[in-house]
């Protein structure tokens, strides 16, 4: 099918370098070290140096001024800086922001980076909610766990409204593990069955342990520039055809319909800008903080009807050999998850479109979708990428 991609790319941006830092359990390093490690690797594969970077995009859960620190660590003075933090979706939103900045001439080479040592320093477990905040007054005192409680409530409601089952959710964990088995750097690579997911202990009903993402150390970086400059660079360019983002709430008690997320808004914009539809997507990288996150995203992005997500994922569609390969690096569920994940959707999508994924390569992948969800189903960012 001719997608007319060449005609669409005038003025767009392209991904020219991607890299992960060391992943998994990485003791004895600071978070900025992982950010810098990933950044250096991504810049090197793009054939660039830190001094080429004039736009810096970073988000972080611990340091409120992450851009200042990473720029200092890399020895650069960016003329454009964006530390938009909307949760794990931030880095997919950063693609939209970088696109706008580059097209406006405010910068020419953008570095998007993330890195966290939340596993080795135990920072996740020690998070303290401000007791005067809405969350601290009206949610936390009841023993809620952010973000787990919100996703469990959403899953329970989805089961009630649409008959979604624990087996449906488990099949997402299973297909994702199948991809992880083909990724040498994935943390969890043992075979996984639906029965094993259901046998794992219930953390907050209806979610089992294996419905929940990993807690790891790690980081990633993505380098983007204008598509015309990208054509002359070391890697095959991956162009950003469309983006969209939104956020709908902060505290989950304010999410009126827990089965309908803002992915419907971000996705609609991204597809419209790209001039494409869900059927055109060859490979999907959809943030999987929990199995339910993927299911809701698939529905709201338009891959299936609202409420049909259970049967949609239960038929092997998302795994190797399926019609919608999803989370081909093994996702947050089986590959890595250092607190925020959005950047890894962009890294894997880029590699799939370049054809460098080895055993887990989706044959003929030309168009990929990246989707990040942040907070407690709170924020959404969608990007559609294509191989040039």
């Amino acid at each position: 099918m001719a997608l007319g991609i060449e005609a669409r790319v005038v003025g767009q941006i392209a991904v020219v370098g991607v890299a992960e830092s060391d992943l998994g359990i990485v003791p004895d390093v600071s978070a900025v070290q992982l950010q810098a490690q990933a950044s250096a690797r991504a810049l090197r594969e793009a054939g660039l140096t830190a001094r080429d970077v004039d736009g810096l995009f970073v988000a972080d859960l611990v340091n409120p001024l992450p851009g200042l620190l990473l720029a200092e660590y890399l020895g650069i003075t960016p003329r454009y800086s964006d530390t938009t933090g909307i949760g794990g979706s931030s880095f997919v939103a950063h693609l939209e922001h970088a696109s706008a900045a580059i097209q406006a001439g405010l910068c020419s080479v953008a570095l998007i980076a993330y890195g966290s040592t939340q596993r080795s320093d135990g920072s996740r477990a020690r998070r303290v909610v401000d007791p005067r905040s809405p969350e601290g007054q009206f949610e936390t005192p009841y023993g809620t766990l952010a973000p787990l409680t919100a996703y469990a409530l959403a899953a329970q409601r989805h089961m009630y409204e649409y008959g979604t089952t624990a087996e449906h959710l488990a099949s997402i964990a299973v297909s994702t593990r199948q991809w992880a088995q083909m990724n040498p750097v994935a943390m969890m690579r043992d075979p996984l069955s639906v029965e094993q997911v259901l046998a794992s202990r219930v953390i907050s009903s209806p979610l089992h342990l294996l419905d929940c993402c990993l807690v790891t150390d790690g980081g990633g970086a993505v380098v983007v520039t204008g598509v015309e400059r990208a054509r002359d660079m070391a890697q095959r360019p991956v162009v950003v055809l469309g983006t969209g983002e939104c956020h709908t709430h902060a505290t989950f008690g304010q999410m009126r319909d827990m089965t309908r997320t803002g992915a419907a808004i971000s996705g609609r914009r991204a597809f419209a800008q790209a001039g494409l539809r869900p059927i055109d997507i060859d490979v999907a990288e959809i943030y999987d903080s929990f199995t339910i996150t993927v299911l809701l995203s698939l529905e709201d992005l338009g891959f299936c009807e609202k409420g049909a997500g259970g049967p949609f994922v239960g038929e092997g569609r998302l795994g190797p050999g399926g019609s919608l390969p999803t989370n081909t690096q093994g996702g947050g569920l089986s590959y890595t998850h250092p607190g925020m994940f959005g950047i890894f959707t962009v890294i894997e999508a880029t590699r799939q479109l370049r054809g460098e994924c080895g055993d887990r390569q989706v044959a003929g992948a030309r168009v990929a979708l990246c989707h990040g969800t942040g907070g407690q189903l709170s924020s959404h960012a969608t990007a559609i990428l294509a191989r040039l």
Partner: protein
Amino acid sequence: MITTNNSPSPRPLPRPDSTTRPYWEAARQHWLVIQRCLDCDRSIHYPRAICPDCLSNHLVYEEVTGAGTIYSFTVTHRPPPAFADEAPYIVALVDLANGVRLVTRIVDAAPEDISIGANVLVDYMEVSSEVILPVFRLVGSAAQQG
């Protein structure tokens, strides 16, 4: 901004502010009060300084019956450390008749007796000498009839 602390976990308690103080003082008296906007008549929860619909600051608290239905629930088996001795407990979203939703607990109920759509009625749980939390119990539960 997120901070981390290394001290053993005390139970997190609400810290009322000038807007929310009437809510918490009512709860200590075993009343459930919900904010309403006098200009557009919208009920508001959690309480705010301005109406999220019309931005008015003509907001009042009114007592409600405390009758509601369960929108969703989850049985928490692995709680935050401060709540370890209460697990398993049931966190729920309860919709009141005036349309507002509360994050709350269902108390004195077995998980198998909970269902989405079930009718519940407010009750009160003392968690410190200062703080009483509105919670809910199933309508018709034995403890209610006592």
